[in-house]
């Protein structure tokens, strides 16, 4: 009797790329929901535009490159990139902001390097950084989170603002955009106010920015779930949060009036989103266990430095890209000792 041959191992593999990506997308839900509750319909439009653009650009690029489209789209990696970028953008940004960012991320930062698995930089962060450098005004105007100055904009008003740039009747753009807590802190510290004075601003909540503290908490919950389900490893989040905690603690102890507390930094801006969902992008991160701890710590420390002394309110995106550059070197110098070899 004749048989078809194969190669070992032969057992069915349960792990799958699409399952992995879907798990990550699921882990984003608590944080995204929180973001929506505090910032309104702009969040949804950002997510929809970014995701749709990401999928469309990936399909177009694959066809141009002559690769099979359906299997590549079926692993949901483009969807994930679109979602991450959409979550990072200001809710009232014009529609072309998520469009340009997402298209750049997929076409240039991912497909032109060779597609999934070949990009040295995190595509979502590349898209974000391109936007923040090219369109600083649109990228730093966030609406006030719900509860700070009344409710968020209504659905139709949001759509109108995003797609046509026309503000709702009887208001000015100024009245529903404001700086984020990190941005506020930066400018106020620059004006030599102390933290105790800054914190009185209504934009701050219980231990971090109003609304932002809950959003970060929700991302933390989603991230821990993701770790327990085995979709990410603990080294990168632990490294990033640990690194940021340590450096902010050191400066806070030195001068608690001029520097934000560690808790503030851990629950502000994109910290938790970055720690569990962005920095953990396996393609652009370090791969050895020890390398990942240093990689995460590097991101945490650089993000703190940019926040405190750099020119941008939140440094997570730049920190991630800088550590992406360092990842191959980290991998080379943190190779684990091979079984049967002497410790070098």
């Amino acid at each position: 009797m004749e048989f078809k041959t194969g190669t070992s191992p032969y057992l069915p593999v349960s792990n799958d790329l699409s399952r992995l990506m879907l798990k990550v997308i699921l882990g984003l839900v608590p944080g995204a929901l929180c973001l929506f509750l505090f910032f309104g319909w702009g969040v949804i439009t950002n997510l929809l535009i970014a995701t749709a653009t990401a999928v469309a650009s990936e399909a177009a690029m694959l066809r141009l490159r002559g690769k099979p489209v359906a299997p590549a789209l079926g692993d949901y990696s483009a969807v994930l990139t679109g979602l991450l970028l959409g979550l990072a953008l200001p809710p009232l940004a014009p529609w072309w902001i998520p469009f340009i960012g997402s298209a750049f991320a997929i076409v240039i930062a991912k497909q032109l390097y060779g597609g999934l698995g070949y990009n040295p930089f995190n595509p979502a962060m590349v898209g974000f950084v391109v936007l923040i450098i090219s369109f600083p005004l649109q990228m730093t105007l966030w609406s006030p989170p719900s509860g700070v100055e009344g409710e968020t904009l209504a659905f139709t008003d949001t759509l109108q603002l995003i797609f046509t740039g026309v503000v709702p009747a009887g208001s000015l753009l100024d009245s529903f955009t404001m700086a984020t807590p990190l941005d506020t802190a930066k400018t106020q510290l620059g004006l030599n106010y102390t933290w105790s004075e800054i914190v009185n601003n209504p934009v701050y909540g219980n231990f971090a920015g109003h609304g932002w503290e809950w959003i970060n908490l929700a991302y933390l919950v989603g991230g821990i779930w993701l770790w327990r389900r085995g979709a990410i490893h603990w080294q990168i989040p632990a490294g990033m949060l640990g690194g940021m905690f340590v450096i902010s603690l050191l400066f806070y102890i030195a001068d608690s009036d001029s520097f934000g507390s560690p808790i503030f930094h851990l629950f502000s801006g994109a910290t938790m989103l970055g720690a569990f969902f962005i920095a953990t992008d396996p393609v652009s991160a370090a791969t050895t266990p020890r390398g990942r701890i240093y990689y995460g710590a590097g991101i945490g420390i650089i993000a703190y430095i940019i926040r405190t002394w750099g020119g941008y309110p939140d440094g997570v995106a730049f920190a991630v890209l800088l550590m992406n550059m360092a990842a191959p070197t980290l991998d080379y110098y943190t190779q684990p000792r091979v079984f049967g070899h002497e410790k070098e």
Partner: protein
Amino acid sequence: MLTAMLAIGILAACFGLLLGFSAIRFKVEGDPIADQVDAILPQTQCGQCTYAGCRPYAEAIAAGEAEINQCPPGGEATIQALADLLGVEPKPLNAEHGEHKEKRVAVIDEQICIGCTLCIQACPVDAILGAAKQMHTVIESECTGCDLCVPPCPVDCIDMVEVAQAIDSWKWPYPELAESSERA
């Protein structure tokens, strides 16, 4: 202005001295290029590259007189290795010099051989055993498959036979897969 020029000039001189000193003090004695090229070539000594053997071809490559894609027995692997060594772009094998064939060895048909020694004189690695008016035979393990013994034989008794794959030198093939999004 003058101080700037002096300063830059002195810096340039210092760095130049440093570089010169390092070039002499830390000079690494390496293989001459021709030796390294020769080490990569398959030593078939067939002459298909238009040189009289592998060593002359290696020296021609080192002198820049020959291209790296003239060796059919070496095939793509040799061209790639030469390209890596010399830091140039690999080129496809130049078809003018022949095509890459599977390893073959010469076999003398002993019924026809007349013992003329012409093939013995032609073999570049002395892989044929025999003497005048004695039977000639090819030492299979030493034959490089260069084909040089075939033309001189007056009775055309030499055949080039493909070497059958032995089970203990079998190689696993490169995994060819229907990649879904893998780069070509």
